[in-house]
């Protein structure tokens, strides 16, 4: 952990002029702010029991979502695990349909059928929202397989945590993805804790990007607290994949400020460790950089803040006002046909 922190704390020429245009910086900022405020509201609504079940928030990891927005194409597919809110918003799902889903409402992105862990959107090529640790890794390889089979120029981003990196499914999928040169971008969001268990306690090799070496898969570690770094790494990976050379693996080192889920107080880590990461908070640092380097004005930043505040307010109201699904919907979508249920009582 200490090593990671030293790496991410190292000065990266914050005062140096960025090569990215103003729009990109503001996209990053807006994406991260939307996710932060959405997740803060989710926690508040959870405490009011408007949201139930398991709820895993993305706070602290937003720079990864920001990089995904700027570095990839809308046509690229994406699949992730159950910490899905931030990634879904980054992929283009609206705050309204996401908040309504958390409320279990009929207007949610999956009509109240998925909840926090299972957001989906065919329109945005967002393939979920998977609740089984590591199950999305072979599925992501399969989504990439279909893109290659159909002869498109698209890739599939498959995201998973440090816990999933030690599931057998990863090794099977990495092998086939490399053997078949699938357009697959694998991203391990290493937030350093698989629920309450640190990577150090369960993994002999703690630099998880090294897993790729056994498959000859190009792999690198990335500072996940900086959207610029994330963007650059994603851009390198996407170029490699689109050139037909096959998969790429990024271990993006990040940190979640909250517990594994809402019910987790996070007692397995120190306050100092948490504070050290909050000191390099991507949202705060990005805002500082934008202002310090005069990429945008105070007024422009303020207008983004106002916009997001209103958006989250509206999303919450929308979720609150929306109808619940009807009980009969319990029996739909098990099969494409509607002759269900099969059994009489």
């Amino acid at each position, binding site marked *: 952990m200490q090593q990671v922190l030293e790496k991410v704390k190292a000065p990266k020429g914050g005062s140096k002029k960025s090569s990215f245009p103003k729009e990109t910086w503001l996209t990053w900022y807006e994406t991260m702010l939307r996710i932060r405020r959405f997740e803060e509201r989710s926690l508040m609504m959870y405490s009011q029991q408007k949201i139930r079940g398991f709820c895993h928030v993305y706070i602290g990891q937003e720079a990864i979502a920001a990089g995904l927005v700027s570095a990839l194409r809308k046509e690229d597919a994406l699949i992730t695990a159950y910490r899905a809110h931030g990634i879904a918003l980054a992929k283009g799902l609206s705050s309204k349909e996401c908040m309504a889903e958390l409320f279990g409402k009929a207007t949610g992105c999956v009509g109240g059928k998925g909840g926090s862990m299972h957001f989906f959107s065919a329109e945005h090529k967002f393939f979920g929202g998977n609740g089984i640790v590591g199950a999305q890794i072979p599925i992501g390889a399969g989504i990439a*397989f279909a893109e290659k089979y159909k002869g498109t120029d698209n890739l599939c981003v498959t995201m998973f945590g440090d816990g999933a990196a030690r599931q057998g499914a990863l090794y*099977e999928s990495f092998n086939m993805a490399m053997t078949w040169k699938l357009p697959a971008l694998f991203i391990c969001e290493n937030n350093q804790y698989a629920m309450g268990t640190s990577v150090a306690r369960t993994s002999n090799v703690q630099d998880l990007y090294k897993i790729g070496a056994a498959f000859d898969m190009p792999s690198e570690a990335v500072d996940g607290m900086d959207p610029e770094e994330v963007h650059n790494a994603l851009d390198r990976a996407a170029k490699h994949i689109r050139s037909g050379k096959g998969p790429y693996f990024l271990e993006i080192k990040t940190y979640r400020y909250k517990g594994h889920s809402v019910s987790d107080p996070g007692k397995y880590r120190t306050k100092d460790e948490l504070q050290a990461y909050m000191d390099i908070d991507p949202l705060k640092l990005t805002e500082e950089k934008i202002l310090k380097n005069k990429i945008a004005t105070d007024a422009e930043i303020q207008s983004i803040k106002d916009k997001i505040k209103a958006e989250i307010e509206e999303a919450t109201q929308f979720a609150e006002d929306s109808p619940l699904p009807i009980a009969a919907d319990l029996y739909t979508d098990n099969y494409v046909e509607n002759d269900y249920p*099969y059994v009489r009582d």
Partner: protein
Amino acid sequence: MALKLLLRDGLREAMIEEMRIDENVFLMGEEVAEYNGAYKVSKGMLEEFGAKRVIDTPIAELGFAGIGVGAAMNGLRPIVEFMTWNFAVLAFDQIVNNAAKTLSQSAGQFKCPIVFRGPSGSAGQLAQQHSQTFESWLGNVPGVKVISCVDPIEAKGLMKAAIRDENPVCVMESEVFYAMELEITDDGKRTYSFGGKKFEADGLMPQDGEDVIVPIGKAAIRRAGTDVTIVTFNKMVFVALEAAELLKAEGISAEVIDLRTIRPLDHDTILESVKKTNRLVIVDESWPMFGVASEIAYQIQKYGFDHLDAPVTRVNSADTNLGYSSVFVEEYLPNAQKVAEAVKNVMYVK
């Protein structure tokens, strides 16, 4: 139309015909391509369709089942072969947690039109890990359909229906019965041959040039009878037909129903037969507890109670792990004698 067809050839014809008409259908699994299939079901398919569509995988059931699920979610129609369903246990996360749930979780946005296929059931002295029957396991899962049929031409028709189906379909075949032959003669006689035994079996009579499709969810009556209904599936149909011959010699007329599909189950065909015969014996190669036979017994006691003249009786594989020795195999599996005995019990004859 006169016909001679082995089960393995029927299954292959189904895959080939569907792959010819739909570019998005492909086959993947262990040894399916260059080796021509562990049981030669996919023989010649690599040659016709090439390595893009007939794909040898590493031994990684979880991984390639998941790749199939992802490909299906993203617009393709994979056929995933398991060398046996025993090995598919490694892939149950993808079948049960993903293929079966994708449509529901996404509220209908992502379909998963995939076929998982391979042999299920005992295939001789293969001992504990290679002899299991999976119809009951998967028949319990909302979101998948389960087919289990060894009639060569109907298995072909069901396989074609499975490939065209928009949902995940698990197809249970039979290692030993891949070699069962169906012969249809010009006079319309339909005969199964296996292991030196032959039994007449009613069923589909394909017309010349017919695109054979058998709808999922419908049972078939293999042999009409009046005294007792024997409901069964997969290779136990052959056992039931043999039992029916033994019973005929004793003046008992047995009706044999082949379920063909396990999920959804064709309750109506069973119930109609029981209304006629008033007696039901279920022959199910699965273990007895919580299985296909139990579900049918429940349905018939609930909806056919007034028509029953005897308790519903089941003949299952023994509730134990199957050991290697031939003595154990004989003791474990249902056979014609055990089925005939069960029938005589529900007929109250010695």
